Structure formats: structure tokens, C-alpha cells
């Protein structure tokens, strides 16, 4: 198959993957709390309901912005799989997240606004890392595309253990997991009500959810980049990482944004930066 076919497949399969992942997550979380939890397909039921429900638009600009959010999330996956330059992907990914911030910031609710500000903070915390990660992967494998990285004989994770560690930390933000679920939260008992999504209803919220599923699939694809020997190995690594995230989610409280910013920057600088620097020095 050509890379373009993979890209098209991503558009259709990534939501299924992301939704199932969310379903498993909710069920496993419930079991960790001693409950039965919702059915496995619950995220799809939620999405279906949200699409059917009335959508109250506070500002007409919200819907195009959110559609842009979904679109660019999907596009970054498509571009990734169809062989675009990896560093470019990191920028498209950041752009997608920015659309959500703009959508949340364009409404008048103070909660939504505060959520948008926090999302901006975590964006600031996570994006430098992704760019660094992509650059490091390109450097290690000598390839600049997804297929190229997968074809490389080097196992990236062995070369970049620091980047892997930092990735796990940053993925906590991107997967919206405790302790770093500060801008929105999967369960709503936080000081910002529902943070970013406070003023979104009906299909608006469905877009956010859908984009999040694309995001999870994209993170999984990034994990495959780190474990580039084979796709099953990458998927396995992602499964283990996700299980760890769920466990930590259920064993910690929500951190404050200052800690999130500090720890991600520290991880980016110390783990990934140190890792890249070490490689650079060793290769001399």
C-alpha cells in the first residue's frame, strides 16, 4: 500500500481506535475504583448523543474553529502517515491544539476563558518537547518521514531513553490525565467546571471529543516512531504506557499549572535535551 492509503485509513480508523481506547480507559478506571463502570462502547454512545443534541452557540465563530481543530488533528495524522516531514507534523499538531484554545477563548464564560489560558500554558509546556522529539528522531535514524523512521535499523527508544521518559510525561497532558488534566477534566469536579469545554454543547462538544480521539491515535503513532522496529511493538509500548497513565490517573490528584509547566519544561530540558546532547557528544 502507498503511504497515501495509510493516511486515508487514519481518517477513518483513528476515531474508532481513540473511542475504543477511551471506552477501555473508563472501564478500567472504574474497576480501579471498585466500580463496574460503563459499557465498553460508551464513548461512541456519548458522541452519538452529542451529535443529535441541540447545540447552543454562544459565538458563531466557535463551530468553524472547532471544525478546524478536528480537521488539523486528522490532517496531522494523515500527513504523518503519508510521509511528510516529521518536524512539520509537530507544527500542525500545535496548530490543531491552538484552534481549540481559540474556540474556548472566543466565548464569554470566565471558566472557559480560564480553561483556554491553562490550555495555552500546557501547549507552551508540551510543544517544544514535540519539536525536540521529532528533531531527535530524525537525527538518530537519519530519516525525516514516518516510513523512513520505520525502515531504520536503529531502535529509537534505545537511543533516546530520555525522550521516551519525557514523552510519557507530556502524553499525560495530551491524554488529559491526572495529575496534568488542568485545562479540562474527564470528571468535572474541578474549580473550572469543565474548563475549556464549559460553553460548548451538543455537536461542539462532540467535535472536541472526536479531535481528542484523533489526538490519542496520533500519540500512539508517535509511540510507534519511538519503537520503530515494528508496528506491533509500538502498539504494545503504547498499551503499556497507557495502562501506566490510567494507573497514575487513579492514584494522584490534579496538579496545579505551575507544577505542570515546571515539570514538563524540566523533563524536556533535562531528559530529552540531555539525551540529545549525549548523543551529539557520543557521535563526535
Amino acid at each position, binding site marked *: 500500500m502507498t503511504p497515501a492509503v495509510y493516511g486515508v485509513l487514519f481518517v477513518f480508523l483513528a476515531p474508532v481506535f481513540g473511542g475504543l481506547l477511551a471506552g477501555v480507559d473508563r472501564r*478500567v478506571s472504574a474497576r480501579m475504583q471498585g*466500580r463496574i463502570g460503563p459499557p465498553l462502547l460508551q464513548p461512541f454512545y456519548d458522541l452519538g448523543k452529542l451529535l443529535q443534541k441541540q447545540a447552543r452557540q454562544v459565538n458563531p465563530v466557535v463551530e468553524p474553529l472547532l471544525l478546524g481543530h478536528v480537521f488539523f488533528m486528522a490532517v496531522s495524522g494523515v500527513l504523518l502517515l503519508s510521509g511528510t516531514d516529521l518536524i512539520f507534523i509537530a507544527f500542525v499538531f500545535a496548530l490543531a491544539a491552538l484552534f481549540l484554545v481559540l474556540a474556548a477563548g472566543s466565548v464569554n464564560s470566565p471558566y472557559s476563558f480560564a480553561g483556554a489560558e491553562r490550555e495555552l500554558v500546557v501547549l507552551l509546556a508540551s510543544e517544544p518537547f514535540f519539536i525536540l522529539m521529532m528533531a531527535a528522531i530524525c537525527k538518530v535514524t537519519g530519516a525525516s518521514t514516518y516510513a523512513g523512521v520505520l525502515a531504520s535499523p536503529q531502535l529509537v527508544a534505545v537511543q533516546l531513553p530520555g525522550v521516551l521518559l519525557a514523552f510519557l510525561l507530556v502524553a499525560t497532558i495530551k491524554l488529559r490525565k491526572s495529575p496534568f488534566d488542568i485545562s479540562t477534566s474527564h470528571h468535572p469536579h474541578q474549580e473550572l467546571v469543565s474548563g475549556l469545554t464549559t460553553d460548548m454543547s451538543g455537536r461542539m462538544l462532540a467535535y472536541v471529543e472526536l479531535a481528542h480521539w484523533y489526538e490519542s491515535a496520533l500519540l500512539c503513532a508517535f509511540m510507534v516512531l519511538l519503537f520503530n522496529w515494528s508496528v506491533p511493538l509500538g502498539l504494545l509500548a503504547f498499551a503499556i504506557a497507557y495502562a501506566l497513565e490510567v494507573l497514575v490517573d*487513579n492514584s494522584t490528584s490534579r496538579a496545579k499549572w505551575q507544577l505542570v509547566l515546571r515539570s514538563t519544561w524540566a523533563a524536556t530540558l533535562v531528559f530529552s535535551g540531555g539525551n540529545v546532547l549525549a548523543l551529539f557528544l557520543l557521535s563526535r
Partner: protein
Amino acid sequence: MPNPLKLPMIPRALRNLVSKPATRRYPFEIRPRFAGARGTIEFDVETCNYCMLCARRCPAAAITVSREERTWAIEQLTCIACGVCVDVCSKHSLSMSVNSRAVHLRSEVGPQGQRPGHEEWHKPAPAATDIPAVAGVPAPAASQGA
């Protein structure tokens, strides 16, 4: 980021994950209530002598009794199941059952426009000879209706 090895909740979360969930699968499995639990007020129309003490003592004013029309009515949606009416009833017409009260829908409006949850008993007047004399109770005012 806190050290994941030092999070004290992790063993508990893992134990919960592998053990059976604590959930009672209501409404598919119904756990019997404890004996003596306060649930629903039950009324036996046969023994009631319409003394109206229950209606007077009810803190929530959920009971309406009309001696003239010989009706006894309770608003299940107002009743707080404190049990005072059961305590004061000299005829033991009232009892407390352990069953929870049923949920009512908006559509359940009575024939005279009574609110959902209105339950009413009516006992036809017996022949004049066997009306028991109720001493010391003033004649009731006009029926308060439902």
C-alpha cells in the same frame, strides 16, 4: 512529577482492579432492606376511626383526613416517613413498611387533578347503628379535599 513508585494509592487501585467490583447491580439485584428501616407508610382503612390525630401531628402536613367524607389521604411526595403518625395512631391502622416508595411520573395525575403520589382511601359509611362514637374529638371542619 511525583515518583510513581511512591504513590500510596497504587496498591489499592491494583487490588480493586483484580478484585470483584463492590457495585450492587440495582435494579437487577435488589438488596433487601434492614428490618425496621423506615420506608413507606401503610394504611389499613378497615380499622381507621378518622380521629385525625395523624393529620394533626404530621410535621410535613402530608396526611389529609376527612371524617365527614370518611376519606384518608396521604401525599407520598410530601411524606418524610418520620413515623409520628404510626406512633400516635391508637387504632394501629398505620404501619411502617421497609419498602422504598415508588417513583412517580408527571402524567400520574389523579381524577380530581390530584398531584402524583396522592393516595386516598375511602370507606363507605356503615349503617347508622354501628358508627362508633368518637368521644372528645370536635366535629371536623369542611373537608380539605386533596
